[in-house]
């Protein structure tokens, strides 16, 4: 299978659907003439012209709302949020209109809208430019929220997102645009609502999403080497709907879980994961579900502080050891 970067895979999905479906169009800041801040849309203006690749002013709320209106008219807009940090400015449009208009119109309209862009931190962008908003958007019924981490998934989930008749919050692993992985040609649509078992194991379940999945994979190696522990790694990837079953089945096997997230602890995805597991696998659990989260502070700039602010291998490995009742040095 061909190897592609996350960026290429993502772009491929959009191009594919734009070629198949005239109603798909792109909107966002500097996606056209400039080529896209993250070069995801580079060249697409030439391919599809300015009606379908719409450069917008710096008006996140305005163009997101306009895209909701377009979606209600039968178009399938893909809005680039240059980074998700700017989406607070569009929160009203996303939460009050996109998520709810189908409901409060009694089902008279659909909103086939994708809002996509990089999410998460790790490259010293500091407090205002570092957020993981899975839980924030995942809280609102009417939205679907996904967070793919592999090139395969970013393509496959983008295909699904574009075809979905509902608003999809598409949270890309911004720090990983350049990472490579196998991506099939053609249609590899990945369904929403299914977690991915990234690595099978028997002794402890590591649950995460986004770039923290890669961290968990490294920790799994480490645990295998250093502790002879077999860790199962689950990539949640679909935040809403959330695949409770895969989580629960894994814990029924391993009896232990650690939920890892880059985002803040309180009311985060890991809390939900812990709440679900203790609820649905109570009798199987041999230890409390541990959570490893980002530091409870706005994101700092200095590299050493930033590194300290995010989960690292030791933190996750130690949490795993604790739930395994191993001695943690």
């Amino acid at each position, binding site marked *: 299978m061909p190897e592609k970067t996350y960026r290429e895979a993502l772009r491929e999905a959009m191009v594919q659907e734009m070629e198949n479906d005239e109603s798909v*169009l792109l909107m966002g800041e500097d996606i056209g003439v400039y080529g896209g801040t993250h070069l995801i849309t580079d060249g697409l203006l030439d391919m599809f012209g300015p*009606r379908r690749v719409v450069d*917008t*002013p710096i*008006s996140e*709320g*305005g*163009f*997101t*709302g*306009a*895209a*909701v*209106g*377009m*979606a*209600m*008219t*039968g*178009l399938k807009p893909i809005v680039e949020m240059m980074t998700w940090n700017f989406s607070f400015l569009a929160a*009203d*449009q996303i939460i*009050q*209109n996109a998520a709810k*208009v*189908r*409901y*409060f*119109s*009694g*089902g*008279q*309209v*659909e*909103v*086939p809208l994708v809002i996509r862009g990089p999410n998460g931190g790790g490259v010293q962008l500091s407090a205002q430019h570092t957020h993981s908003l899975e839980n924030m958007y995942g809280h609102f*019924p*009417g939205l*679907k929220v996904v967070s793919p981490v592999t090139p395969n998934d970013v393509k496959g989930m983008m295909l699904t997102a574009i075809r*979905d*008749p*509902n608003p999809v919050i598409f949270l890309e692993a911004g720090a990983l645009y350049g990472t490579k992985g196998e991506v099939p040609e053609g249609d590899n649509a990945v369904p929403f*609502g299914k977690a991915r078992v990234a690595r099978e194991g028997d002794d402890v379940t590591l649950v995460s999403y986004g770039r923290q999945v890669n961290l968990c994979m490294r920790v799994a190696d480490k645990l295998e080497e250093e502790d002879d522990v077999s860790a199962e790694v689950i990539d949640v990837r679909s935040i*809403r*709907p959330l695949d409770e079953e895969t989580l629960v089945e894994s814990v029924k096997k391993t009896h232990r879980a650690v939920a890892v997230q880059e985002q803040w602890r309180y009311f985060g995805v890991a809390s939900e994961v812990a709440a679900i597991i203790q609820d649905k696998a109570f009798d199987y659990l041999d230890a409390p579900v541990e959570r490893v989260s980002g530091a409870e502070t706005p994101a700092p700039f200095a590299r050493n502080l930033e590194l300290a602010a995010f989960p690292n291998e030791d933190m996750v490995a130690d949490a795993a050891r604790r739930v395994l009742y191993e001695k943690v040095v």
Partner: protein
Amino acid sequence: MSAENERTGDGGVETQEEPREESRDGGAVATDGEHLVELYKNMILIRTFEEATQRGFRQGKIGGYLHVYIGQEAVATGFIDAYKEGDRVITAYRDHPFPLLLGSDPKSVMAELYGKGTGLVKGKGGSMHLFDVENGLYGGYGIVGGHIPLGVGFAYAMKYQETDHICQLYLGDGAINNGAFHEAANLSGLWGRDGMNPCLWIIENNQYGMGTSVARSTAMTDLGAKFDAYGIEHEKVDGMDLEAVLEVAHRTADKVRETGQPYVVEALTYRTAPHGSADFFEKYRTKDEVKKWRQRDPVGQLEHKLLEREILDEDALEEIRAEMKETIDEATNFADESEEPSVEELYTDVYAGEDEYMGEE
């Protein structure tokens, strides 16, 4: 969901009770007199409807918020007369007249306010969220200013789809201070340059946003002129005078349809009713002010014209009032007697497509 209705080629609409053939003949604009009578009926329909909703609210049969259109009838009536099939109408929460004018059955409109399963949106939205997509009404929104970008998006999409439909986008004077207005107006002006924004902006300037007058909400009180910042042309109209509105409405709707460019009409009007159901004291305006404006009431003005021009006499007016009262009484009874939605409806319409509902019950 909506009533069967006739629609003539020029886009005028009519409620079920008033077959259009009487007043218009396929496409051609009817004589002034007949047209005015028809629109007078519409205005009485709205007024009577609103008065009934106020009673329903006081009786505790309508819950939530209730914002009526009393005093402003000429604006919606005039502009919706310029509606053509395929166009889209979007507004805020002061939305009752729109489905009535666009041809929804008054029964379903009232039933919606009563929170019944027979309501326009199945009892799910209530007073602030009326939708009748078949008849061009794309809502009914509760966040001041929040609907504005949607209207601009409709306009873009309708051009993208190569139709010649337009969007009628209604907004209040208060909404103009919201950032969503600014961003959307800028997009409208920008896209309009390429003929990609057939959006007719209609400012219902009733001079107050809740209890705050225009003068207390902005230092520059010429609301139409605010669109200069976006390169969008604008004009004003006396929103209490149906004939004035009518002229502007048809002319500007045509212009927007032809050019694909946005245009703004600021209709100066007044809500003689309270802002909403919780506006008890009206400390922000004097009784005299309200009285002064009542003298310019759009319904009264039109009646005066109809009498003066001898188009109708007092009896004929009374007949129309009675007829509309009957229609609304029927609607009210229907609403009253309808069943609440079935509880399963709680979980429908959350998502479109296969997984209609997603979550835990």
